[in-house]
């Protein structure tokens, strides 16, 4: 059946007006069919698992063949009374606060630097971007060597200066900081690319116009460049936030959440619950909590910050 039966080129205008009800339905069906593959994939791999997770978080599994039991919000009560969960949540908050502002500021500074007139600009840009191309696992392995207690680069350098070494990943009070530093190193270069692209989209005449008025560099940055980069900042901010919850690859290599959960983050805790403790229900419950938090943050972004941002 030809879905364009009612809309031959040339005859379109006349036929559209008198397009019959069934023709119209055919067009709608045609559109729906075009959307189907993507919708099917999304449903299978995004929406169904989400719903299943929400459902799972409301049930207790039955043991020895007994049917699962609906317990309402009891799983959440258990979760919220679990001190480890709060510790992990607090870790994740500290991790986000530690990585996001610093990596954004660093990314912006690097972008401003390599956007200027500079010898070997291409090389510097590439150098800044290199950490991004490395897989997180590989990057974490490199940093393992930096952080290693005896032979590590940092402790070697400290030793030369006459300081005693730090147990970067083994000391609970330092370990999270070490993980944060590595994440910043990994992410800043990636965010720099977005800032660089946005900076190149700012017409050079704006700088010239403000130079003619004797505007200082500092003043130009805060009055023109930064506001014009706001859409990029928002985009990068959301990405950084999602990454702070989503990317835990480095924990597998560096600390495995230890020592004593000092570097454990939410998603790694979900993984532990599901595949180490085999508590699928708890894993589902934490997942739902993460989703809710991210949803709230995204809503805030779209309602509050978007209204105050200039999009070109």
């Amino acid at each position, binding site marked *: 059946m030809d879905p364009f039966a009612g809309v031959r080129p040339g005859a379109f205008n006349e036929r559209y007006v008198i397009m019959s009800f069934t023709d119209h339905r055919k067009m709608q069906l045609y559109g729906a069919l075009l959307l189907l593959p993507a919708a099917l994939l999304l449903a299978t791999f995004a929406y169904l698992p989400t719903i299943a997770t929400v459902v799972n978080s409301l049930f207790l599994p039955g043991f020895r063949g007994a049917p699962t039991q609906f317990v309402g919000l009891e799983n959440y009560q258990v979760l919220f009374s679990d001190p480890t969960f709060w510790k992990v949540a607090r870790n994740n908050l500290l991790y986000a606060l530690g990585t996001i502002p610093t990596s954004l500021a660093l990314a912006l500074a690097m972008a401003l630097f390599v956007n200027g007139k500079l010898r070997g600009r291409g090389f510097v840009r590439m150098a800044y971007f290199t950490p991004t191309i490395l897989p997180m696992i590989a990057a974490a392995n490199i940093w393992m060597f930096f952080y290693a207690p005896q032979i590590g680069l940092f402790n070697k350098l400290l030793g030369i200066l006459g300081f005693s070494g730090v147990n970067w990943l083994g000391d609970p009070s330092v370990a999270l900081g070490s993980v944060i530093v590595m994440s910043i190193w990994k992410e800043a270069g990636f965010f720099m690319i977005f800032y660089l692209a946005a900076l190149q989209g700012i*017409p050079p005449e704006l700088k*010239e116009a403000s130079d*003619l*008025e*004797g505007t*200082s560099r500092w003043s130009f940055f805060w*009055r023109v460049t930064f506001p*014009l980069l706001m859409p990029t900042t928002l985009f990068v901010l959301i990405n950084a936030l999602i990454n702070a919850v989503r990317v835990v690859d480095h924990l597998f290599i560096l600390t495995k959440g230890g020592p004593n959960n000092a570097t454990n983050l939410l998603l790694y805790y979900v993984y532990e619950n599901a595949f180490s403790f085999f508590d699928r229900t708890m894993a589902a419950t934490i997942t739902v909590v993460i989703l809710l938090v991210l949803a709230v943050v995204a809503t805030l972004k779209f309602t509050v910050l978007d209204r105050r941002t200039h999009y070109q």
Partner: protein
Amino acid sequence: MSNQSRIRLDRVSKCWGATTAVDDISFDVTPGQFVILLGPSGCGKSTTLRMVAGLEEASSGQIYIGERDVTRLPPGDRGLSMVFQSYALFPHLSVADNIVFGLRSRNVPKAEQRQRLAHVAELVDLTDYLHRKPAQLSGGQRQRVALARAVISEHPICLMDEPLSNLDARLRSDMRREIKALQSRLNMTVIYVTHDQVEAMSMGDRVILMQQGKIVQDGTPDELYNRPASAFAASFIGSPAMNLLPLEAGEKGAVIVGEPHTSVAPLEAVGGQLGIRPEDIALSTTSTTGVPALVVSDEYLGADTIAHLAIGDHTLRVRLSGRHRLAGQQCRIGWTAEAAHLFGGDGLRRDDLTAYSLLPAAALSAESASPHPQLQPQR
């Protein structure tokens, strides 16, 4: 008026590597003058303007504003404002904030900012749009914002870099008059860059025509039109452009190449070119004197008709007032000695020679409103 806004360029050049964009040019702009830098794209006119503004540094030579040598001063210290081709408005700021941007940079008190803003907004007719963003304005309104930003700074000098080229033809002619009116009202010294000879002729007190980084002619619009200094100047000013016909030696004098029977100038003009404006050519289909030509086609433009003629190996354009259907007819053309310009082999104007007067009897021209009976507009 004070000498504050006098601009003087002394042997200024700008090179990028091996290419020379501006080649050793000098000129002197007196206060209150409206000077046009005219030329085809790539002739160095914008670079010259940007060097005056301080956005490009001169490779050699000196630039003076008033009595100061500003050659190495940053743009903000030169005491001038500029209107950009792209307007360079800050897209995230309202019209009002765009206009007072420079005042804020210079820490002008808030109350004075408001007062000057109100005054300038009225001057350029933007009072109702002060809270809009540039994206919500039409092209002409954006242009006004850019002008307002230049005017509010109260600098005596304003530089304009093709400010009208992004507007449509109709708006452009309105803005031409507005800019000119604003300039004479505020007694600003303006250097205005354009490639549009209409803007140059209608706005300028003085036109500096440039070609390949050099000044070809520096004079009033009248001088550029009536006494072009070179074949290039002749072909750049006027629409349609001046006809340029190469000359070769004939029996009794210089003749147009391919038309050996009528000598048009003394023998000394051979090797150069004869230039005649399309509006200075008289045309007759009945006359037996004048240069014979064949009308190839005619273009009716409303007020007048442009006839394309084949003469010798060349085509030339003749502007006739009113409507005429002449295509395919043989005719005779001519001109007065004053209307003919002679250019040497090097392209420069030759004032030592005078072309012959070749007016055909009973001619039809742009000036004469009494056409021959045979040339009555056909209906």
